[in-house]
């Protein structure tokens, strides 16, 4: 298969770059929905590395782990977007800096 020519280092490097981009999104953007999307990006980067290592070792455990990560991501998105909606009802903004109701 063609993919076997690509060494695992390239996959892991791509995964690292994607992860960093996700982290930058979380740190730099102030939109709560966008922060969630960046977290999804980071989870996907981790999934890519897991799948690459699973292929390298011929071991299915990595695939199961990716499956769990996806499930957790789905749960996280459901709850996270619900939180964003209920915040939006209180105060019509998605900017995380404006959400300071707990501030004394």
């Amino acid at each position, binding site marked *: 298969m063609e993919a076997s020519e690509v060494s695992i280092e390239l996959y892991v490097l791509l995964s690292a770059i994607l992860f960093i981009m996700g982290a930058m999104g979380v740190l730099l953007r102030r939109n709560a929905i966008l922060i969630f999307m960046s977290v999804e*990006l980071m989870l996907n980067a981790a999934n890519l590395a897991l799948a690459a290592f699973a292929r390298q070792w011929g071991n299915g455990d990595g695939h199961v782990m990716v499956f769990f990560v996806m499930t957790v991501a789905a*749960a996280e998105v459901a709850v996270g977007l619900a939180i964003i909606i209920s915040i939006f009802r209180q105060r019509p903004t998605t900017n995380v800096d404006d959400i300071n109701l707990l501030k004394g």
Partner: protein
Amino acid sequence: MFVFLVSGAICLGGALGVVLFRNTVHNALSLVATLFGVAVLFIAQEAYFLAAIQVIVYAGAIMVLFLFVIMLLGAERVLPEAQPRFRWLTPAAVILALVFLATTSVAIIKGEIDLTQPQLDEPMVRVVNALDGVAAVDVYLDETQVADQVAFGEASSFEDWDTGRYQARIFEAGADPESDPPLAEYPVNLVADVALSLTAIGTAQDPDLVTVTEDLGQINDKDELRVLAVNALQGRMAIDVVNDTDAGNRRVLAENVPYGTASEIIEIEKATYAIGVYPTGSSRTRLMGIEDEELDADTSVLWVFTEQRQADSSYRNAVINLETDVRPKFGSPEHVGQLLFSRYVLPFEMVSLLLLAAMIGAIVLTHDRRGPRRRLVRRLANVPASLEQPAPGQTGD
């Protein structure tokens, strides 16, 4: 390499779009591109099941949820990005990211981690009893019992075993391995990835042990299965195993198999077969056979042809027919499912509970408790209007 470059570029472009675009809908669409690229990379790494899940769950369900919320909240309006509360955050984040990237790159490229050795599956062992004259057998590898009370014509199920050299010993069922002499013993060498059938053959006076190695690896051709035969006939002649399904076109599956050996493994198509066993060189005297045997694809079939002495000193032919599923293809739904329902049952159940909790949590969080109050507010708003309306009329009078 081409696939990797193209889908990698799509991933990176999508990721850049997620971080840089100002419009939230554009961000979401870029994220879809990234997820799609990752799905292609999954396929390139033989993670077919994950690729399907990625498209269905991520690009399908999760992104629809995102877009739905964006539209619901009207967050797609392009607003001037508010100044971050902390001015130093942007340069700090960029520096941190660059440092992280440099560190991981050095670690990945210069790490010289030995990644070349693929992990092999543990060897598997089972016991097949074709030993005439003994009610049942116990089999030990060194001091550890592999199977006990295996009756004639029966087989134990495959057990995972550590690699290494062992002395396989067969005892009559119930014998004490410490003191009683074994019926037969035989050195075996267990290496990774093999499936070994310790087959006891012969008679109680002259027992023997055959180690049959089966190949449970994935079969490349669709609709095919592997078969092999063991000659345990007490007449001790060599046998031919012939496919008798079509009398006009007989095909020899295994030729000249001496007593106490296993034939070569051959791959045949799945079908309903009639198998005949003949002494080598004589196609007229059919010793025994298997009729109307339906063989499924992706299995490994072991036939042990043996005889059992009856009370009246005649011999009754017996075929031990053992069918084992081959290991599922790496990354296939069967493979992931097998792991999920064997080694990872507990995490699987916990994750399903987590999903259930998330579902209830989302309902509780978005449940609008102000529903009745809003109706009250409307009514109150209408009250002054109805009070005010007649007022101008009254002044007009």
